[in-house]
């Protein structure tokens, strides 16, 4: 999971939220992607995502004004930048997939029961990994795959990434989750 994906994701998010008068740039000195909007500069993917959702016309992706919801969104955005984006090897990736799969066992979306910016940001962060998985591996992380397949269709993300294929039937016997 490589660093320059962050630049792509920021640009994609800005397009997705359709925020006018904003520009994305990569600040070489600090090594951080920045969003500039009406003179204000926001640094870092998680903050930019929060900023975009606050200022866009899609408040539903905000998750609502409940404190717990806000905290959960912050938490998952942080998870993206500190854990997902920093996997150095296969083992790290597998740990992430297992954790998220486990979390989503009883949930449709990451926060509340509708799509929020946390789902979007994690989708972007996981795309590259999912693109590499075989259908059998996807079945191993059943809940995470269900979530991924749902988000990629519901959030209308075809403009950003191709729709990945998922099998709708169990094909592999004895697939345990661990």
């Amino acid at each position, binding site marked *: 999971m490589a660093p320059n994906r962050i630049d792509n994701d920021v640009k994609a998010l800005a397009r997705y939220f359709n925020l006018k008068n904003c520009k994305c740039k990569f600040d070489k000195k600090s090594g951080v992607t920045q969003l500039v909007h009406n003179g204000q500069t926001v640094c870092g993917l998680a903050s930019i995502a929060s900023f975009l959702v606050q200022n866009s016309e899609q408040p539903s992706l905000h998750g609502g004004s409940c404190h717990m919801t806000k905290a959960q969104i912050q938490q998952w955005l942080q998870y993206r*930048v500190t854990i997902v984006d920093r996997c150095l090897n296969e083992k790290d990736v597998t740990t992430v997939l297992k954790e998220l799969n*486990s979390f989503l066992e009883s949930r449709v979306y990451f926060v509340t029961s509708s799509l929020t910016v946390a789902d979007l940001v994690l989708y972007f962060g996981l795309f590259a990994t999912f693109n590499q998985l075989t259908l059998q591996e996807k079945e191993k992380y059943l809940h995470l795959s269900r979530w991924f397949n749902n988000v990629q269709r519901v959030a209308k993300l075809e403009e950003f990434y191709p729709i990945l294929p998922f099998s709708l039937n169990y094909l592999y016997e004895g697939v345990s989750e661990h």
Partner: protein
Amino acid sequence: MKLFTDKGNQHSLKILVAAELAGISLEIEHVDSAAIVVPFLKRNVLPVLEVETNEYLFSANAITRYILATVGKDSEDITVSTWLEWESTDLQAALSSYLPVLYGGGKADSQKLQPHLSKLDNSLGGAQFIVQDQLSAADVCLFAALYPLYANSKSCFENFSNLNAWFTKLHAEPPFGASVAKVTEGKGSSSLKASILAQPLVNTLPVARSVSNEKGKSSKDKENSTTEEVVAKEFSLEEVRAAKETFLTGKKVAPKPVQRNHPLLPRKDAKNVLITSALPYVNNIPHLGNIVGCVLSADVFSRFCRIRNYNVLYICGTDEYGTATETKALEEGLTPQQICDKYFKLHDHVYRWFNIDCDHFGRTTTPQQTKIAQDIFWGLHKEKHLLEQKVEQLKCEDCDRFLADRFVEGTCPLCNYDDARGDQCDKCGKLINATDLKNPRCKICNRTPVVKSSDHLFLDLPRLESRLQSFLDKSTTEGDWTSNAKMITSSWIRDGLKPRCITRDLKWGTPVPLEPYTDKVFYVWFDAPIGYPSITANYTPDWEKWWKNPDEVQLYQFMAKDNVPFHSVVFPCSLLGCGEKWTLVNHLIATEYLNYEDSKFSKSRGVGVFGNHAEQTGIPADIWRFYLLFIRPESQDSYFNWDDFVLKNNSELLNNLGNFINRGLMFLEKNFGGLVQELKLEQLDCQLLAAVSQELKQYVSLLEKVRIKEALRHVLNISRLGNQHIQVTQPWVLVKGSPEEKSRAGTVTSLCVNISCLLSVMLHPYMPDTSKTIQEQLNASADVNVLTGDFVCYLEPGHKIGTPKPLFAKIEQAQADQLRNQYAGKND
């Protein structure tokens, strides 16, 4: 609300301060630093706040803001977010490696923290708070993050006056002071040590950061961005040195490819590899599953063995005797021989189209088959391994024939499956006798057949069991048998070997030479594997040098899992018992099943891609080979999926592999007149050489063990590494610069062109046409087609390449949709 934390965990300080500021009392539970509190997290992450039963927050920063928010004290200012994000990414990454050294008593390099402290210091100016002159979560979290530094040495911020002032002022505030006391329990910095040393290291980002999108890419760059970057691993100096040395000097000592002169016979000075693929039954039009499991897998391995300079013979052909052919002949009004001639051509054509390069693709209906089968039979007869028995068989009075197994269907006596065939139940896989079926029916006329008795010959497997077991013990431990092959074989033996009938009342088959059985033929499963040596006998009269030479020949047999018992038990027993020393299978490679989309291949229902359908789609054979091998069903069934097919073509072949090779060649042609430049290798290049060498070695060692699917991944890894190298070095910028920069661009490009040459060889077993095309575009000599496991520079400075052209074409989703519909069969 309950806070779980280990004692002295500095991150919990944030939360305690927030609680104090909010006037909320928190229940605190102390746990071990390795405890996993949150059920779904696979690592230990402390502190954790249980907000309500089973509702957790595991991000300390998020918890801090949450607590402040509950009393309206969390700021909406986005700057708070950016500071917390910086804290959790940059600052913690630096502290995570610094603090354990500091607290562990080592010599910590405080220079590492300078930029971070400096940034804070500058940002503060003289302000009392970080954001908008008001206490916020930013102050709380940054204070807590830095606290361990202060606890260790109160003068740690002495070079940063603003920071120092900010910190000490906060520290003096009651909420902060009280929280510090709670965390340290009044014991100062030593209380933090245990937790700090137990906390897992935070991963940091790799230093080499590639620049985002190249110029000129449109916003529809999504497909290019799916090219996944492999994070560069650091190789040891020795590995790098060795890779560089081999690369630069290896060409002189590289062996040349061995010429393939027919007829191929075992040689004393070479590794002799005999490869067979299960003989496809002539009447059945092959589908993709049949192809990948048998002929294609064997083809990949045999091509690999050839570029390893082993002495390889790859034998395959059609299995032609048996009732199905007889029946089909009646249906079509032809003789069985004519049917076989007709369908043999079809098989031959399909496999040629798929580039299956057998040394000989033959047939079982030859005089050699009769001779060899009868010789084996006589051998078994002489050694007394045959039994004579009356057999009750099902005879269909209306059709006036004894029904062979495939012409009886009924209910399986063991598992109650309704559609069991006469010799093997499709569902439970157990071998049965047709007479055991419940509710049998003649497949042709659906009448219930009657039981009549007839004399037959049986191979006495139990008598040969101990010899078989010794052979299997040796072969399965010394050779590479796939695990399903071993399991199926051992479960067969565990079930208890019984004598197997080897004769049938049919006309179309190898005649039994013993009176009074001369009106009968050999049962197909006794007869068919004898096809391997007999087809070889049609190739060369010296066939016994391969087949009766176990000391000098290694036999690899490829098949799908349902054929395993016949190759691991019945055939070896026939050979072990006939009194001669035969070459027996050393490595049995069995695949699982390939399914099609969400169901199974079915000729009758028109579901799936059969015979020459693949050719008709216009998609080149190499692309089919690639995808089938990418999804080769090794440890589990897998299935063919059109969407995935398109995706793999477009992402792996087009954007990864094709893109890397093409851009290197185009660049060399455009900027350097197509001439390979001098290679002045720098550190980054040598790291790449080491990485490519490692992938190559893994590829070779995997294919030696016939791990076909895994080895392919390493080919794609190499082109990924190549793409990444180009992204980082940016030769398109360098080439416009100074002469040194231009020369650097020349080195990088020439290195990539050599990697492309290596890739063409590694690709040969999988995609032979593409391999050839790449070598033509490289103008590489045929001598490069040898794999020693070393990455060698074949294209030296001054070598002129050919004409680059794109290797692969994009498959549009629309075409895939249309093809999927075409082969989806009738709706049920």
